[in-house]
């Protein structure tokens, strides 16, 4: 089986696993305990906090560990909305049209509390541009949330420009950097964003751990109460092994970033060039945008996405039709819809996301598999079913 779905999740790096292991055996203290075992766990958390801070050039005190990207996004959006400094009871939030469900859903939940939530559209290329964001911002806008890079298309948003608009209008900016971290060099301090969400399992760390990076000037109402962990910012006994794993994965991602980028970009370019050559009808989405180096989002008319994915699975290739979190719904991707892609074409969408362990022969195998599917479809004369 060839795994080509690294934007859904990544396998744990062996080195990360080695770092975690002691915390699943002899180093089992509760970091809140005053005795030696507890203090050892606390010290290990401190190191992980530094490692995660370094991943995005933040200060360790800006890192709040969470149970993952979804929690970080919820904590950011609801935390700002319900914080005591929200002078007016209900205000406005602006989010990008291509946001992950874990940003869209908490933002929508604010509507029940009287908040106005506006989704701003994206360009055809998939990026949310600064002037569109500026148009949506009004006097009552408290916060904007625009992802650093999109999980489906890989399109990278112009964060510096977006932050500039927010700064000008005194609007807080949150960015979901779950897909960008480990694939791009991120600089929280320079980004202009006040809040940033991260996840470990997208960068060869464990599932069930993430972080919210918060500028100290931002007042946040915590999502979870009780116990006072993370300086009250996130209560609950820390997932020590998970956090240690996140720290190690972050450290490796910093050290190996350039090499990883080179590797995945080489595979992605090779894949897209070959695909365009052997199946010229293929459409590559967001090709006009700057993209994550590992992500290719495309359709090969007249192949239908879901059918194709199942066929590829049988042939030993794990790919996706879009986000894993939306994979239970049969609707076409909201990202493609926002990009103005026709529904029919969107139904054919396939996402390939490369990782460290993929090779050129994986690409060759995938291309042959895609070709054989096209041939099979043509042989069945079913191609007309498309129209």
């Amino acid at each position, binding site marked *: *089986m060839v*795994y080509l*779905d690294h934007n*859904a*999740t990544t*396998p*744990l790096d062996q080195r990360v*696993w080695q770092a975690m292991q002691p915390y*699943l*055996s*002899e180093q*089992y203290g*509760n970091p*809140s*305990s*005053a*005795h*030696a*075992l*507890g203090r050892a766990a606390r010290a290990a958390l401190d190191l992980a906090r530094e490692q995660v801070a370094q991943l995005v050039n933040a200060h360790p005190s800006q890192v709040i560990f969470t*149970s*993952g*990207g*979804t*929690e970080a*996004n919820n904590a950011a959006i609801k935390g700002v909305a319900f914080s005591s400094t929200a002078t007016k009871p209900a205000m406005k939030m602006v989010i990008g049209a291509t946001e*992950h*469900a*874990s940003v869209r*859903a*908490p933002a929508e*939940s604010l509507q029940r509390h009287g908040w106005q939530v506006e989704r701003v559209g994206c360009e055809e290329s998939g990026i949310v541009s600064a002037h569109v964001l500026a148009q949506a911002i009004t006097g009552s806008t408290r916060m904007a949330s625009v992802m650093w890079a999109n999980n489906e298309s890989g399109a990278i948003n112009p964060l510096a420009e977006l932050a500039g608009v927010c700064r000008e209008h005194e609007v807080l900016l949150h960015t979901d950097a779950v897909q960008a971290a480990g694939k791009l060099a991120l600089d929280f301090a320079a980004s202009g964003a006040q809040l940033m969400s991260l*996840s470990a*399992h997208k960068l060869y760390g*464990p*599932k*069930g751990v993430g972080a919210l990076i918060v500028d100290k000037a931002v007042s946040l109402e915590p*999502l*979870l*109460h*009780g*116990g*006072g962990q993370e300086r009250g910012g996130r*209560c*609950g*006994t*820390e*997932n020590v092994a*998970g956090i240690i794993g996140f720290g190690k994965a972050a450290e490796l991602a910093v050290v190996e970033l350039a090499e990883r980028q080179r590797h995945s970009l080489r595979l992605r370019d090779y894949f897209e060039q070959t695909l365009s050559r052997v199946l010229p009808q293929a459409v590559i989405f967001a090709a006009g945008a700057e993209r994550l180096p590992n992500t290719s989002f495309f359709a090969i008319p007249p192949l239908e996405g*879901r059918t194709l*994915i199942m066929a*590829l699975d049988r042939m030993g*290739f*794990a790919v*996706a039709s879009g*986000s*894993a*979190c939306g*994979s*239970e719904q049969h609707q076409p991707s909201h990202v493609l819809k926002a990009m103005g892609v026709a529904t029919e074409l969107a139904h054919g969408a396939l996402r390939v996301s490369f990782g460290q362990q993929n090779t050129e022969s994986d690409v060759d195998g995938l291309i042959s598999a895609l070709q054989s599917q096209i041939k099979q479809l043509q042989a069945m004369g079913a191609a007309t079913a498309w129209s």
Partner: protein
Amino acid sequence: MSMKKPIYFDYSATTPVDPRVAEKMCRYLTMDDGLFGNAASRSHQYGWDVEAAIDEARKNVADLIAADPKEIVWTSGATESDNLAIKGVAHFYRKKGNHIITSKTEHKAVLDTCRQLEREGFEVTYLDPEESGLIDLAKLEAAMTEQTILVSIMHVNNEIGVIQDVKAIGELCRSKKILFHVDGAQSCGKVEVDVNEMKIDLLSMSAHKIYGPKGMGALYVRRKPRVRLEAQMHGGGHERGMRSGTLATHQIVGMGEAFRLAKEEMATENERVRMLRDRLMNGLSDIEEVYVNGDVEQRVPHNLNISFNFVEGESLMMALSDLAVSSGSACTSASLEPSYVLRALGRSDELAHSSIRFSIGRFTTEADVDHAIKLCHEKIQKLRDLSPLWDMFKAGIDLSTVQWSAH
């Protein structure tokens, strides 16, 4: 000073992951076994394989509490479960009523969540437990009003180990049509839990208190009659919309295995643990001026919370650095305040300050207990020898009559 590791007597704070649990977890992490997938991935084998493992874990957790697997919602731990249960009910049933009843000896995850709801306009009654630590049913009933939508009472207290009569409380709540949430973080795997027999509507569970991984928990949410919740984490719609977020497969598998082992081994393990606890209690009972905190009978065998009068708890903990014990719950151990649980029981500040919690578990041995007994005798003697209060007490002076001069 010996450099060997302290003997662990803090199983109520957290437990080591059972090696059998760790072994199972590690299969769901790296590329080797191909079981690292995202359970929400519907498009390939990697996703389906882990989904099956998660289903099995869900069944194991449900089995321990006699629930249906469909009633289990995965969370990041008991704190999240408590938050989800209490805020989730409060926000969903807000139109029905705005009153919640809990007790003063609950874990901070319940108390702080209730405080937050008070800020949102809810009314919360914090019941005083009896001196034994147990809730008086008549007082609970008296606190119930037309507006009461939820009662939240823990099954087993984390500091003193007393077991509430949740069955009686459950029956009372059901008869009044009030939802009943139980913080079961310290009870699941230590005492029998049957959500139907006990008429529990919501039950918070933790993995790391019962030899599973930290950062993992679950919330039982009754389906018949159906209990509704407002989700606290929104997103991809995982866990039937009640809790979004990519499922941490290895964590879930770990919790499932820990709960399966707990069910299998609870009876024999409790017997052994009780024997050790009683040995410890008997071994310490010949020290003068010791007081066991909380009911001795209605108590999990794992816990011994004991106050050594005229010895200051923090000094005792330092003196007992060969033992990993706590002077309260781990979550409040950073503060030097006396335990709010012991205060709620009516213990004096002095006795609350001199309390030590020993919690015993799967890997505690008789030799560990004997060493602890010996050490306590030595150190307490030493500390008391240095204490003027102890001298006065021994001289027969009633300390409560002494007029302390201000300085």
